[in-house]
């Protein structure tokens, strides 16, 4: 019995008692050869274990106390700490709102894309990311450069050089990656276990139809600021929001949770819907392209308007540009010539002054006039275009054949005061108040300053300056029975929740002429096309009213530029119940320059396509090509992708959309009122939902292009 060496050991007295008991027991069991020392060894071992057990128990108490302190006493503070370290500010880009045409087709959309950057200091291999013993010895910067360069279309050695620059903690690898590029990069980063790379979301604007209505739409600068066109004028509605949002980040600074890409849908912004009809706009753009090709005009403008409502259905301008690459635009391409240039209208102004004459009772359509080919006013000789006289004619003929002499005489009868007053009433000399950005007011005489020659030449559209939109709008007043309308191009602006923030409405500015006078002028203008100077604008089967105009171009330095003309044509169709009014203006055509030669045929070709496309029935079928033949002609331009049509319950089965342009896909989806989220640009290659999925009107289809 060596054990109790420490007399002070607390267990000692008990031990003594136990020992005695054990001794007794040991004696009892002596037959089993258990001597007391063995029994003692047993007991002592157990006592030691018990003592050590108390030590552990004390440890447990400490742990419980510590856990209580950390979790119960400090729980809240620690929870805040945990939340703090996992939360971070994340700039969530709500992409800029879309611009749609009147049928909901997307003209401008924003897509959130990812930009890749790297912190070269973090671009090292972390053993914690590799399975035990599998970490290769390599230069991760080299590996990264070589793996990423081919995917991003960059040079590996340049990339490597940037990664190796000392002290740099932020290097853009590539900005606004295409989604498939971003996917590949993510894959590579994961496979190769490369650290330090991060994505930043950036918004990128896509003009789905490239140069279609480019000047109307305008474009957006790098910081999401609308710089031109509707993008600028409706910037406050369209502007995307970069909201600072609290999100969760892991310790490596990567966003935790679903990829932001998938949330784009939920974060759509206000939508601006224009009165523009993309199909008509397309026809208009093509017509202007052809016109420029044929006439080599320096610039051109064309506007298509609904004369009854003031809605601008199409507005094209040359030279033009692709807003997707606005940096490459030719000089002067940003100007929307439909509203931005002022020119001397020439003969197209005659119906305005003619209407004034009819209103004032100075003339009637049948008032006789003796045309001598020229007329002298205040020392100035005013000639007809060919200098020839037609002899005894009526006022109708004056309009029909665009006789300058007759108009000058009318002008003199009206006097400068009334001429100017009517011109103002028809909306000249002031901006139209339309919401098309970049409008000019034009120039009118102050009647007090007008000498008799001014009074005479104003009646033939000289000495004043107008914009194409002003001119078209004035003609619309004649077309619709005398009401001057305020043109508009923004149909409505809709918030994501469907609230209409702004709505364009037909607004009558004033009654300019009586319906009777309008009717008389319409008849005269109809004759211009059917019998007079505008025959080249005839469309078989339709009644067209119009007026040609050829004016010498004003020099910015004053006076006229010799040999340079502005040829225009303005008209509406069908003339007895006008649906479309259009103006076409060619600036400085080479070779032929008369409005009747260059502008009227374009007017004809353009409206013919629109009438057919819109299914406007001809009033007279003689000599008409069949609708089918015209349709098949346009069908060649269109995609083989059939336009979808929703069933009776609004459901539609989604086809495979791969292999088409954004425009084609948008058109196809638009038919069933499905909305498109295009991602990337080029040709479609992937879509969600998958082909065959049954969708309903209003659903969204995401299509990836490359």
């Amino acid at each position: 019995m060596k054990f109790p060496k420490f007399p002070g050991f607390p267990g000692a007295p008990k031990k003594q008692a136990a020992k005695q008991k054990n001794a007794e027991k040991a004696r009892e069991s002596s037959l089993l050869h258990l001597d007391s020392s063995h029994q003692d060894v047993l007991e002592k071992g157990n006592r030691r274990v018990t003592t050590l057990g108390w030590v552990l128990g004390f440890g447990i108490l400490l742990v419980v106390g510590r856990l209580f302190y950390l979790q119960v006493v400090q729980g809240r503070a620690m929870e805040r700490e945990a939340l703090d370290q996992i939360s971070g500010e994340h700039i969530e880009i709500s992409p800029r709102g879309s611009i749609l045409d009147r049928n909901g087709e997307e003209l401008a959309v924003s897509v959130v894309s990812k930009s890749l950057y790297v912190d070269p200091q973090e671009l090292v291999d972390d053993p914690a990311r590799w399975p035990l013993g599998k970490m290769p010895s390599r230069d991760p910067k080299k590996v990264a450069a070589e793996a990423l360069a081919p995917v991003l279309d960059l040079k590996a050695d340049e990339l490597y050089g940037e990664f190796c620059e000392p002290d740099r903690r932020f290097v853009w690898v590539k900005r606004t990656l295409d989604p498939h590029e971003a996917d590949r990069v993510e894959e590579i980063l994961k496979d190769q276990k490369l650290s330090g790379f991060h994505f930043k979301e950036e918004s990128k604007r896509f003009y789905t139809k490239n140069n279609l209505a480019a000047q109307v739409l305008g474009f957006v600068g790098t910081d999401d600021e609308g710089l031109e066109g509707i993008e600028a004028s409706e910037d406050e509605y369209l502007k995307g929001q970069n909201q600072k949002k609290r999100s969760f980040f892991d310790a490596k600074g990567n966003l935790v949770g679903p990829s932001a890409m998938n949330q784009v849908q939920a974060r759509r912004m206000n939508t601006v819907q224009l009165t523009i009809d993309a199909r008509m706009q397309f026809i208009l753009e093509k017509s202007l392209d052809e016109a420029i090709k044929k006439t080599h005009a320096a610039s051109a403008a064309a506007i298509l308007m609904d004369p009854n409502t003031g809605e601008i259905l199409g507005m094209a301008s040359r030279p033009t540009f692709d807003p997707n690459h606005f940096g490459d635009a030719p000089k002067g391409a940003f100007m929307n010539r439909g509203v931005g240039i002022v020119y001397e209208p020439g003969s197209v102004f005659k119906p305005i002054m003619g209407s004034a004459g009819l209103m004032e009772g100075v003339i009637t359509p049948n008032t006789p006039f003796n045309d001598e080919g020229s007329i002298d006013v205040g020392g100035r000789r005013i000639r007809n275009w060919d200098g020839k006289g037609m002899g005894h004619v009526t006022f109708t003929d004056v309009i029909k054949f665009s006789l300058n002499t007759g108009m000058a005489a009318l002008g003199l009868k009206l006097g400068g005061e009334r001429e100017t007053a009517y011109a103002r009433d028809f909306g000249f000399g002031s901006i139209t108040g339309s919401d098309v950005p970049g409008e000019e007011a034009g120039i009118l005489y102050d009647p007090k300053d007008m000498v008799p020659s001014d009074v005479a030449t104003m009646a033939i559209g000289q000495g004043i300056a107008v914009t194409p939109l002003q001119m078209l709008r004035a003609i619309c007043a004649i077309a619709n029975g005398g009401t001057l309308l305020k043109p508009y191009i923004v149909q409505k602006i809709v918030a994501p929740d469907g609230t209409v923030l702004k709505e364009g409405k037909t607004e009558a500015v004033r009654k300019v002429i009586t319906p009777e006078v309008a009717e008389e002028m319409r008849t005269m203008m109809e004759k211009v096309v059917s019998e007079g100077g505008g025959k080249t604008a005839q469309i078989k089967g339709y009644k067209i009213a119009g007026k040609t105009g050829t004016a010498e171009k004003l020099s910015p330095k004053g006076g006229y530029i010799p040999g340079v003309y502005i040829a225009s044509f303005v008209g509406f169709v069908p003339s007895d119940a006008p649906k479309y009014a259009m103006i076409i203006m060619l600036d400085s055509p080479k070779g032929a320059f008369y409005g009747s030669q260059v502008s009227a045929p374009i007017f004809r070709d353009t409206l013919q396509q629109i009438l057919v496309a819109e299914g406007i029935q001809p009033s007279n079928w003689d000599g008409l090509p069949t609708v089918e033949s015209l349709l098949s002609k346009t069908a060649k331009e269109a995609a083989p992708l059939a336009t979808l049509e929703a069933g009776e319950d609004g459901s539609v089965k989604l086809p495979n959309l791969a292999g088409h342009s954004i425009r084609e896909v948008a058109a196809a989806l638009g038919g069933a009122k499905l909305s498109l989220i295009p991602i990337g640009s080029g040709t479609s290659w992937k879509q969600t939902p998958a082909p065959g999925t049954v969708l309903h009107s209003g659903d969204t289809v995401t299509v990836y292009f490359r």
Partner: protein
Amino acid sequence: MGKRFLLLWADPRDALVSLVYVLMLVGGENIFSASFVASQDMFGNEYHYLIRYWAFGLPGLVLMHAIGRKGDYHKLFPYVQRICVFLIGLLLFVDGYGKTLKGAQRWLILGPISFQPSELVKLAVILLGANYLGRLMEEGKQPHLLRKDTCLAFLEAAFMSFLVLIQPDMGTAAIILALMIVLYVVAGLPYREIFVLLASGAALATAAVIQAPYRLNRVLVWLDPWSDPQGNGYQAVQSFVAIGSGGISGMGHGMGSSKFFFLPEAHTDFAFAVFCQEWGFLGALLMLLVFIIMGLALYRIGKETQDRRGFLLVTGVNFLVVGQAIANMAMVCGILPVIGVPLPFISYGGTSLVITQAAIGLVLSVCRLEKAGRERAEAPQGAFRHQAERKGTGRWRP
């Protein structure tokens, strides 16, 4: 006999087995929750560690039951010395050629299998101590650390501990030495020597701290990790944040935030912190309770074991499982400095898991053989047999 263990179980053996299952289910789930983020990043598969856990754990369970049913721990003792020599060889090899992970060479890689010899050493030391000290106890000798006839096992363990220390793996080295010391204490090491041991340990530690300023810094950081939360105190601070943010009832399974690369070693040594974050104070108490019951069960088994070597084996395993568990929890919540001590069944580690299961298997075999011996003693003759049975006389002297 017939006395239920803590009402729930027929005997402590049942309790032990069922709690192993409980801990493995909880441990597997917790490892999955703690590791799926890192696992996804590293292997592209969030179940990697969960699968590996059971890939080790299921054969480990089979091994545990096999040893418990068929194994005879006595048969191991003749080989203990050879096992230890072999392990010393392995440790030397690992120190020379082992795989470096996080700055320490402790891995041996054999094809697809990699393991830590130092984990094997833990069990080997228990067997060594049980064999050596058990014989001393049977001979009625009191072990002394300074007597050359009783200090051999200690020296051998100290040498192995040293080999592990220079890997460097201070935690495992400490555990190896501590297990042997515990066995010495249980075998009757004089209190004077225990105090001398404690005092010299403290003196050594003080000297070490004074000698190298960076160690002093470590100690200061341990005492106040918040003084350097981004540097040396990072691991401890992250652990506190994880534990504390669990509050009373926890964030819920899988909902903890620390696994997102904030808490290093989230699925291994610091798995308990993740558990605390997701299950709160109440969950932590429950887990603690499981380990306490396990400890009591092992204690009862040891107490009822007559064979001294079996008794020491059971006691050693008790400290291997429950002692390590408490040390790990103390480390995770900042009572002990951050040294690598795993939480059995809860921390991910294939070698550690299988070794722990084998150790439990050995305990089960101790139970079985003890019971068999008791029945043999009880079965045929005489009244004294009853008394003998009651006192649980042993087969330790056949």
